[in-house]
């Protein structure tokens, strides 16, 4: 069955996503629901398959059960292939060692054998915490055209925000001469998107060297990239234009969901030329009741709407009872919002029950933060959850 693969993608999905608090107690960040019927990992996986990359290793470590089940055999993304396809790569016991993944670079180091099995020329490194649509094939073409050893996708960010990112300083031909992690005084606004293409052999050499360096953090951003730059390898920045959002925090996750709303959303998921695939549940179409009021919402199959919903992203199988008012919120799915309950400026994880007349969060204009209700939490009838409060699952 052996067939050489030109490019193999390695998707780093082991992070805990600790800044998402209540949303990641049981679930790895890449498996966090997004946009009504997706999970974060659907974006890099769909990008891969849309870009013609059919071999993807998903490196998991933290709370992988939901993620493993979600990915399954890769069928929803057309990644159930006879050779290649999507493969889950957890830490494993080798002949000489048995280690957790110590860092992003170490995770790849431990799985280089996976890449080697396909005799890949190029390795695409992705992470499971960004929402974006990108054609990796164009980036690969750029990488080849430049004859690069490593190409890093970059996004032009507003100069005043540049100090929050890893910043690439480039020459006019796109080659990188400096990389600074969260610089105080940035001299460029090209932020690393955490998407790298490496020549496999070069990557292999640097991973081995890094592994043999005592005290290394075994991290791409902290070690591998600076080391390659210092050694004068050919490194290029690939400029990406379009929507891209790191959804590593509660507020950015909320914002990215809101970016889907409206007639001409910043991120259009209805674009049939670049579909985002997701594992579907077999649910009935949504039903909108006689007294329902829906304004500016994205609502998913399986929902039953009897109350009022404004400016919300509503995931699959949510029931909003009569008299309930839900505003400026993200409902991830399978929630029940009881009669007369008021939910404002909140993220409601899957399986949540909000009791009758309960009040969650407060009006966005005055609220001091987003209220977050974790997976499977039940909020009692008439209870009050303050704005910005975080109720993790029990």
């Amino acid at each position, binding site marked *: 069955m052996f067939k050489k693969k030109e490019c193999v993608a390695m998707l780093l999905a082991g992070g805990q996503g600790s800044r998402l608090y209540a949303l990641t107690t049981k679930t790895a960040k890449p498996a966090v629901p997004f946009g009504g019927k997706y999970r974060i990992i659907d974006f890099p996986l769909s990008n891969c398959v849309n870009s013609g990359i059919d071999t993807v290793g998903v490196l998991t470590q933290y709370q992988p059960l939901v993620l493993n089940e979600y990915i399954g055999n890769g069928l929803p993304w057309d990644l159930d292939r006879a050779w290649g396809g999507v493969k889950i790569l957890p830490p494993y016991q080798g002949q000489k060692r048995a280690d957790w993944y110590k860092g992003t670079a170490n995770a790849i180091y431990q799985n280089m054998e996976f890449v080697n099995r396909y005799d890949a020329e190029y390795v695409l490194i992705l992470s499971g915490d960004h929402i974006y649509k990108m054609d990796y094939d164009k980036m690969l073409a750029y990488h080849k055209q430049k004859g690069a050893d490593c190409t890093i996708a970059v996004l032009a960010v507003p100069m005043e925000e540049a100090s929050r990112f890893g910043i690439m300083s480039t020459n006019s031909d796109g080659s990188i001469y400096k990389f600074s992690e969260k610089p105080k005084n940035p001299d460029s606004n090209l932020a690393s998107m955490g998407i790298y293409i490496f020549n496999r052999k070069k990557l292999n050499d640097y991973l081995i060297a890094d592994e043999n360096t005592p005290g290394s953090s075994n991290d791409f951003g902290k070690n591998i990239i600076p080391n390659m730059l210092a050694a004068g390898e050919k490194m290029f920045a690939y400029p990406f234009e379009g929507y891209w959002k790191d959804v590593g925090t509660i507020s950015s996750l909320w914002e990215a969901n809101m970016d889907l709303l409206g*007639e001409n959303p910043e991120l259009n998921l209805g674009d049939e030329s670049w579909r985002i695939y997701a594992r579907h549940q077999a649910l009935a179409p949504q039903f909108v009741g006689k007294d329902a009021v829906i304004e500016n919402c994205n609502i*998913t199959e399986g929902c039953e709407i009897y109350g009022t919903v404004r400016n919300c992203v509503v*995931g699959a199988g949510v029931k909003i009872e009569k008299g309930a008012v839900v505003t400026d919120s993200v409902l991830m799915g399978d929630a029940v919002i009881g009669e007369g309950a008021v939910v404002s400026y909140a993220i409601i994880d899957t399986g949540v029950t909000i009791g009758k007349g309960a009040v969650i969060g407060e009006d966005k204009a005055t609220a001091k933060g987003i209220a977050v209700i974790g997976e499977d939490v039940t909020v009692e009838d008439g209870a009050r959850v303050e704005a910005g409060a975080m109720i993790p699952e029990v």
Partner: protein
Amino acid sequence: MTAAGLIFANTHDKNIAEMTRLRTMASVPFGGRYRLIDFALSNMVNSDITKVGVITHYNYQSLLDHIGNGKDWDLARRSGGIKILPPYITMFDTTTPGVNRSRMDALKGALNFINRCSEDYIVMSDCDIICNIDLKAVLEAHEKSGADLTFVTTVIDAGTLSVQGTVPVVEVDASGRVTDFAEMHPTEGKVTISTNIMVATRTYLQSVVQEATSHGYTSFFKDVIARSLESANYRAYAYDGVFAKIGSMEGYFACSMALLDEEARKGIWGVPNRPILTKVRNSAPTKYCGDAKIVNSVVADGCVIEGTVENSILFRGVKVGKGTVVKNSILMQDTYTGENVTLNCVITDKNVMIKDGRVLSGCETMPFYIGKNGAI
């Protein structure tokens, strides 16, 4: 107890000729995101039947496209799975005019499939009915009674029945045995009909089809069932759940609109562990924007709604433009309505385009139907 399934995809096509001009009854869209065969298939899969033959003989392109390899019903199997059974025409017999003229012809054509089954029972279903039934219970009752054939029966109100042609009316005695079977068109009162979901003991079915072949019988019901009511053991299994039978355009409209009733939705879509499965299309969630106003409607994913929708069924990918008012209508997949359109009692088939400002209206008993790819 093991069972295989057999689905008749084209039976009853002529009852809604407008919609089956380019498709089988089995692939008629229904309920926002389904095709009629989804109900028969899901009932079988939910009852652990993992080998299903689908008999079809014409217009089956849309059916093949819908079913694919069967993975959406978990029927892409090495062992069993879904098998499409087109007419069996040999190179010496290509002019046979009566390919699948009747259910018996269809069964004759499927005899190879049946003969290769090792399952004890064959569950048969047509595609003109909508229900969510536990076939395991039917199979258990069939086995317990030792019947040759068990009809799943239901009681309908003949006054509200909208079917062109006849329905199979059955009489059942106190012990559950079928004593009479007649194809007729009842006009009033409560009548017990066969849903055309039947469980046959495989060996019995094989012998009946073989005998029909040797004797030249052409009708399963008239030549076999009606003649053997006394000699064979036919039983009825009374099903009292939500049931709809589509026998005319008016009936299609009425059955669709029945989904706006909560009890009907619960009975079809709300049964625990018995989901209705269908082909996945990967549509984004539905967008409600601008001055969208929507009440009492069933809406599938992938729609963009900027106008007013009332008492309607919207399939996947429907666009309702600004200022447009859709009432009491069924808009199938990818119907596009421009701005300031008014629709009442309209059925649009797939991919219909209705231009700005059009005003179209039918009525409940005669919905205005626009064929596939139509532009108006």
